[in-house]
Structures are given as C-alpha cells and as structure tokens.
C-alpha cells in the first residue's frame, strides 16, 4: 500500500469507510446506500461537505457554494426517504459542478468576468435554465453543492486562467491541478465531494484527473448532452464525471448519459448502463484484454517517472494475461495544430454572443455607439487567454485563410480519426500516459502559451476523434527535496459509444494497480514519504 493518507479533517477517523463522519470522503456508492438506509441523513452529509469545502477554501476549487439550496435539497431527499418514496441513483450524494454548466437561478460565470454584471464574482449571471446534466443530477436526487473553478470559459490547461483566482493542486498547493476542469478535479481529489462534473474539449477532464490523482472520464462525443454547457468548441466539448474510483465515475456517467433532443449532436442510441457490470469484475477478467500502445504517444517527451509508471503498468498487464501490442498513429503529429485551429475557430464564433446586450457584463462608454459597447464589454470582460484564442480562431476562418487553416485542420482531424478507429479494430483499448509530466508549478507555464498548448498532446487525439477516454491514477512520483509525491495518470481510449467496454478495462486496470483510494492531502508543505507508487498483485 502506498503511504498517501488524507488528512481530511482534524480527528477524523482515517480509512474507515463506515465512519458516520466525513461522508464526503467515502465512495458515492456507499454514501448513497447509507443515506438510503437512513444510517446518515442527507442533511448531515451536506453539512459535512460544506464544512470541508470551507476548511479547504485555500484550494480555490469553488466559485460558488450553494449552501442554502444544497441544504434544501438534502432535506427534500430525507423527506422522500422517510415517506418511503423511491430514491434516485445519487440520493444524498454531494456533486460539484463545473461553473461552465448553467444552473437555474444560481450563479454561473464559467470563470469569466463577462458573465458577471459588475466584473465581480458576487454579481454572477443567474441563468433562467438548467443544463441537461444538471437536470439529470436533480432527477437522481444528487445534491448540487456548488460550482467549481476553471480556466476562463474552459480555455486552459492549468486553471490559472480563471478570471477570479487560480485553483491549487491538493497534492501540492504550489502546483496546478491541471485544467480547465481544475476545480472539479481538486474537489474530488481533496474529498470535498465524492463526485463532480467537468467538461473536456481537448483534455480538460483527463489532464486534471491525472494531475490530481482521481478518475476522469471523457465520454464519447454526443454521449452526454451539451445542452447548457457554455460552449468552448462545439464539435469537441463533452461533459463527463470525476470520481475517486472507476465505479463511482461509472455511476455518475450512467446518470448523465443518454439522448437529448435539445442537442442535435447527441447520439440517438440509448446509453447502456455501465456501473453494475463493474461490480462483478475480477483480475481474471484481464485475461485476453487487448491493449494497444500507440508508439507516437510514447515518443513524446515524457517525464521519466511518467514513463516508468506506464512501463510498470504494461508489464503488469502482460503478467496478468492481457495482450499488449504496439500500434501506430502517424497522424498524431498533426493533432496539436489541428486542434488549436478547430477549437479556436469554433470558440471565436461561440463567444460572439458575449456582447453586453442581453446578459452579463455591459460596459457602455458614454456617448459610444454599438461598436464601442462591444469593444468595451469584450475588452474588459475577457481575459488574455480567451482574447488570444478569439483572435486565432477569427484569423483561421477569415476569407482567404479558411482553406489554408480550417479546411486543412478538418482533413487532419479526419485522418487522425480514421487511424484511431482502425487501431481500435485491432485492440480493445489504447493505453497512453494522460499527460507528459506530473502537475507543473503554478505560474510555470503561463508565460509561454505554446508550451502550455503542447502539454495537451496526449489527450487531443481522442477529442478530435470523438472517442471515449478515461484517465485514472497509475502511480506517483517519488517525493524529493524538489517536490512532494505527485500522482501520475494513465489514459485508456476506447471505441466510440462503447463506454461499457472502456469502463470495464479501466476497472480492471484499477483492480490490477490496487492504489490506495484515499483523497489527496489538501495541505501544502507536508512532506510525503517516499514510496513505491505501484503495487501489482498478480493473481494467484
């Protein structure tokens, strides 16, 4: 067992999953059962979660905490239970929601000043409607406990581009939790909530999951409705779950997945339930699993400890009876360029609606015309990274440049997709590192946007191809004078709309690795012990 232990709460019993206190550190599955049985009230669960959120405010994980509304929801769940009414799949489970998902009458900023009336967080926009996934959460009796911090309008890989304050990595407060869904990853990692929702456009769920040592699933494009997700890049955006283990991620995925006629890119096929089948899996089921290693992903400049963790995992898989083979994805080298043309082009268009006319910030210079209103509102409302992407995308779509940039980027995207799909005809899943390195230091990358963009290399191909991909912890770096032990994530990429298969493979890897499930320390400066990150337990 690795030595990483959470210190979630002074005096809280550690590792005791049945302890009545500290509900948030338990698996969502267990928590839901205890609430359903009446062992603990939803109200108590919520109170504890709110305490933890307050105790770890220094993480910057939350932009808004829905104290009153969460307690009201909890009381409603408890009343339902007392009345003997059937309870939803997430009854009483606190779920944090990325602030780029709109919540009815509740603050929604997407991490941007442009979605505030005055530029201050306190004057956040309150949308008149709920995102589809938020409706699903409510219908499942989950508790919407708050909205999590993110890179402004989901643009970034470090959560430092939040217009309000950066998110810190619970494993090391001097480091980034990744991004853009950094707040959602940190919330689960620090056991502020057992579950959270994020969104992933080019890696915004998977990379923070890896940096924070939690599980993050980017479903297939179209598997989860985007209705109510403040759009970054429409052809790439996907909503997905964070959890501390694969089974909890599957539980939340099952709640949010499925067709929604309001999103016409939503897949019509019903979503097959995934969570239940995972309960019966054993290590024996690894036998015969075909795992592909895309050579190009390993040719990238990888941190030595990341490479070592993946090597250990590959060896363990082989030892456990899986078939591990190398595959080729030569077009991967176009992924970063293709992605940043397509994503910025779509973003430049999607962000046009932030114009100061109907909602959010309105900066009106006196005596100015309509254009002055636009210029002033957008000039003050958007941060530098968002402006950079609007400019890039506007350029790529401009007359005379469309063919050279947008059209070619689409061609590259098709090639990348075709190669991934062909590879997945030979193997069940592809295994790669999620990020080339563990969490970097806050401030380390913000000066060099291109270097920041390149860190997305490993997550972009699955995004461009619309394939489901999951990041799960596969070890830790050793602690040193330089830094604390940091989580390392691996990524599994599956076939389109075949989340049950992907989650099955992820659960098998999780069983194989048998990493401790405790939350991150959420404390800065506490030296972690050096430890063997990966313990393999071959079947006997």
């Amino acid at each position, binding site marked *: 067992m690795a030595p990483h232990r959470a210190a979630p709460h002074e005096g809280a019993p550690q590792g005791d999953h049945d302890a009545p206190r500290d509900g948030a550190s338990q698996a969502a599955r267990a928590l839901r059962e205890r609430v359903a049985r009446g062992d603990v009230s939803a109200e108590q669960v919520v109170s504890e979660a709110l305490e933890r959120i307050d105790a770890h405010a220094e993480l910057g994980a939350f932009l808004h905490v829905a104290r009153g509304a969460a307690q009201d929801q909890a009381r409603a769940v408890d009343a339902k239970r007392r009345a003997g009414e059937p309870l939803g799949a997430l009854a009483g489970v606190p779920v944090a929601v990325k602030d780029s*998902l*709109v919540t009815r009458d509740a603050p*929604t900023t*997407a991490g941007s000043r442009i*979605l505030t009336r005055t530029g201050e967080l306190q004057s956040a*926009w309150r*949308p*008149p*409607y709920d*995102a589809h996934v938020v409706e699903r959460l409510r219908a499942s009796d989950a508790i919407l406990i708050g909205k999590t911090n993110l890179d402004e309008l989901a643009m970034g890989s470090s959560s430092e581009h939040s217009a309000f304050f950066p998110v810190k990595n619970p494993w090391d407060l001097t480091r980034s939790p990744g991004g853009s869904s950094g707040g959602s990853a940190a919330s689960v990692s620090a056991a502020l909530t057992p579950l959270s929702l994020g969104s992933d456009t080019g890696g915004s769920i998977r990379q923070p999951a890896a940096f924070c040592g939690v599980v993050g699933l980017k479903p297939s494009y179209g598997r989860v409705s*985007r*209705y*109510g*997700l*403040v*759009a970054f*890049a*429409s*052809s790439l955006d996907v909503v997905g779950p964070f959890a501390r283990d694969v089974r909890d991620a599957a539980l939340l995925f099952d709640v949010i997945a499925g067709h929604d*006629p*309001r*999103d*016409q*890119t939503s897949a019509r096929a019903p979503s097959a339930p995934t969570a239940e089948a995972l309960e019966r899996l054993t290590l024996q089921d690894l036998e015969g699993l075909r795992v592909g290693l895309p050579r190009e992903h390993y040719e990238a400049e990888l941190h030595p400890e990341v490479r070592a963790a993946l090597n250990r995992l590959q060896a363990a898989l082989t030892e456990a009876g899986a078939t591990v083979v190398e595959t080729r994805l030569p077009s991967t080298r176009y992924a970063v360029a293709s992605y940043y043309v397509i994503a910025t*082009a*779509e973003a*430049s*268009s999607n*962000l*046009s*609606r*932030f*114009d100061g*006319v*109907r*909602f959010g910030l309105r900066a009106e210079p006196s005596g100015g015309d*309509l*254009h002055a209103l*636009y210029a002033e509102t957008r000039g003050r409302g958007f941060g530098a990274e968002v402006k950079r992407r609007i400019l890039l995308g*506007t350029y790529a*779509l*401009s*007359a005379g440049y*469309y063919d050279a940039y*947008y059209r070619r980027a689409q061609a590259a995207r098709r090639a990348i997709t075709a190669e991934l799909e062909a590879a997945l005809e030979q193997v069940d899943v592809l295994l790669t590192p999620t990020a080339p390195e563990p969490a970097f230091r806050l401030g380390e990358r913000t000066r060099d946007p291109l270097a920041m963009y390149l860190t997305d290399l490993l997550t972009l191909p699955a995004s461009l191809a619309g394939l489901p991909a999951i990041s799960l912890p596969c070890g830790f770096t050793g602690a040193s004078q330089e830094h604390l032990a940091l989580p390392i994530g691996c990524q599994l990429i599956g076939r389109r709309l075949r989340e049950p298969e992907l989650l099955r493979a992820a659960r098998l890897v999780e069983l194989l690795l048998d990493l401790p499930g405790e939350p991150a320390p959420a404390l800065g400066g506490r030296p972690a012990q050096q430890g063997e990150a990966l313990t393999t337990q071959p079947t006997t």
Partner: protein
Amino acid sequence: MNAPGEYEAVIGLEVHAQLLTETKLFCGCATSFGAEPNTRVCPVCLGLPGALPALNQRAVELAVRACLALGGEVQLSSVFARKQYFYADLPKGYQLSQHDRPLSLGGGIDFSVDGAPRRAPLTRIHLEEDAGKSVHGAQGQSLVDLNRAGTPLIEIVTEPALGSSVEAAAALRELRSILLTLEVNDGRMAEGSLRCDANVSVRPVGSTELGTRSELKNLNSMRFVQRAIDVEIARQVQVLRAGGRVVQETRAFDPETGTTRSLRGKEESHDYRYFADPDLPPLVLTAAGLAAAREALPALPSEVRARWQREHGLSRQASETLSAHPALIGFFEAALAAAPSVAVKLANFILTEVLRGAAEQGLSMSFRVTPAQVADLVLAVEARQVSGKQAKEIFQVLEADEAGQSVAQVIAARGLRLVADDGALSALVAEVLAAHPSQVAAYRKGNHAVLGYLVGQLMRRSSGQADPRRASELLKAALESETGS
C-alpha cells in the same frame, strides 16, 4: 421595357419568405406576429450561453414543399452554416443560414407579362433564421425586440435574368401566389413576412457581360419593388451617360422621395467567416420522403389558370386575378362547382362585385357572401329571373345581411322579379313612346343611340323589374314598325 436608350437592365431578386410554422426554426417559441416585445423568447433564440439549436421539422417540410413546387432540385444533404457579424438584434453573433450547401438548387418561377410567358430561373433556395428587430429611438437610444429572432425563412434567389421592373414585379407576384397556395407563406409584404431585395445592374444593349450591381433593400410592397427598380435603373443609366461608374453597394429605397440612397459600399461589406455549424448535423432527406412531398403538392396557380382557360373559357386576365390568392381560388372553384355552366359570368361577377368587399388577411380572405350565393345569383340572372342590375342589388343585400338568407329568399322578400311577358312590356313601350316624342323622332331620323335612353326610361317605369333585353327588342320593333307605316 428596357432602360431608355442604349442600356438594358438586368435584375435578380432575393426573396425572404417567413415559413408558416407554429414555432421558430430552432426552438419551441411561438412565431406569432405582434406580441409584446421580448415575450416570445427562450434561452435558444436569446442566444444564451449553453443553449443549442434543434431544427424544426415542420419548417423543413414547408421549405421542401416550396422547393418542389418551384422545380428546384432538393438536395438530400444540406448544411447550416454560421454567418457571422455583430449586431444588437442578432443574439448569437451569427445567423444560422445555409451557405455553400443549400436545400435546393435551380428551378424557376414561370409567369407572364401581358400574356407572354416568361421565366425567372432560380439559383437556389435555402433555409435560414430571421434576426430580431431594432427600433431606433429619438435620443440615439435603440431598443431590441427578439420575438422575431429565429423565425424560419426561406431565401429564394433568382438568376440575374429579369429585364425590367414590370417583369420583376410580375415574377414576384407569381411567386407570392405560389407560396400562398402552398400555405408556406402568408404573403404579407407590409408586415415583412415576405421581403424582397433586388439586385439591379444595367449594361449596353447587346453586351453579354453584367454591369456592376447595386442591391436594393426595403422594398416592402409590390408597388415599391417596381418603382424602386425603375428609379435605380434610371440612376445607373444617368451615371453611365455622365461618364461615371456604378459602384457596387447596398441601397435603400425611400418611398417618400422616390429615390434610392446608399446604405453601405462594397468595402464596408462583412467578411462573414462562414463555417458549417458544429451544433447541427447536416440536414438529411430521403428520396422517398421527397417523392411523398411531391405527391402531396396542391395544384399551383398556373395549373389552375390553365384549366380555367381551357375548360371554362376564362380570359387570361380574369384567371390571373382569380388565382392570385388561394382563398380566392377556393371561392371561385366552389362557385364553379355549383354553377359550371356560367363560368365566365361567375368570374366576372366575382371580379366586379365580390372582390370589392373581400378583405385579405395573410393566408385567409374574408368574403361577405358564400360561393353558393354567388352561384345562385348568377344562375338567376342567366334564367332571367332577375336582371343584372337587380342581381347587384340582391348582392348588396346579401353582403349586408347577417342572417344568411338565400338568394331566393331575398328575391321573394323584396318582390323582385323580372317582367318579361310581352303583354306587360308592350304597355310600357307604348307609355315610353308617348312620353318621349322628340327621342322617338330622333330615332326615326337615324339617331339610334337614343334607344338606350328609351330603354332606361322603360326600366324606370318598371321599377327596374323589366327584362332589359326583351324590353329593348320590343322598343326597337315598335320604333321601326311605325317608321314603316
């Protein structure tokens, strides 16, 4: 009707027609006209963050119907693009419109000018959403009403192939009556549910190259379309004659001054940065679906006109007027079914009497009488139960009548009848001749025009109940027989 002198005009039309759907193109908001500002809105048509478009299938059906009726080649796959520009009444900062893959290619509007057949070939027809409305106040303040934002439109684009304002207006009139007949659009130009822009250029007669065009906007009536084009042709010819060059620009017609003025030049035109909307998959239709839609098309005005002319002997002009509106077609067809033997008389009676009291309101027209009443009335004249003049009186009674009396009831109630029996009429003839000796003398000297006067006098003495035809015959006989004696 070419431009004066050595220039000829080339005109193309871009027509925007609102589709008669209950709800908007991409959301469930009602499309009703005239509601309180900003009450027919939702997150989708307000362009709120996170909202996504969902295509209205009914709009697609109506658009397809129009494309098929106009002979367009409906594409099995078409694509919505984002046309991007900033304006206060464009909530998303882009308009969803089909750009390089429209719903339909080709087709044409067949119409006639003074009986001569003409065709306006179509470039394309595509689906798009309407913008909202900006109202600019006096103190430089602007108000935005987004009720109209997201209303479904089809844009019908003709080739630059019309030679005069008369042709342009005739083509537009025909298009309007086709869209009305299809129940695709309500044809109300004043309310903006049917809007027309005209691309106008002139060139030396005999040239095959197109001149530089201007695009005329704000043509919100048939009359303005024709006038604006005439004014613009004259302006361009004048510019060229003075040795100048026509510049490519957008111009607005001002009906107050009867002139056009520049709105914006080519250099101010937008780079719309079109790209396929990633929120909407391609619009895919099936050949079977199109075949079924084609089967279900109603008879078009041109087909109805041809039948009326062929089978019922109607004039071109009468059939054109009667086919201008589907409700009128329906009215005439119903009357025709009740009295097929008097088709031409029915047509004339409707054109001269019924249409005066009819009011058009979009797709519906209100008539103050029923087709059956008109048929009965024309049949009564034909059977010489009443005179034509009496028929008009009866018609006025029917129009004003709330109780819905039949023609027979009105005739009976008013004691109207036609005196056609020779005995009674001969007495009246004798009275008239005796009372007007000078006219009698004039007639006998060869001034036969006074016969009409004498018939009129006889009708007066009969209180309008004499059969004017028989009375005229008897008068004439009497005048001429006494000459011979």
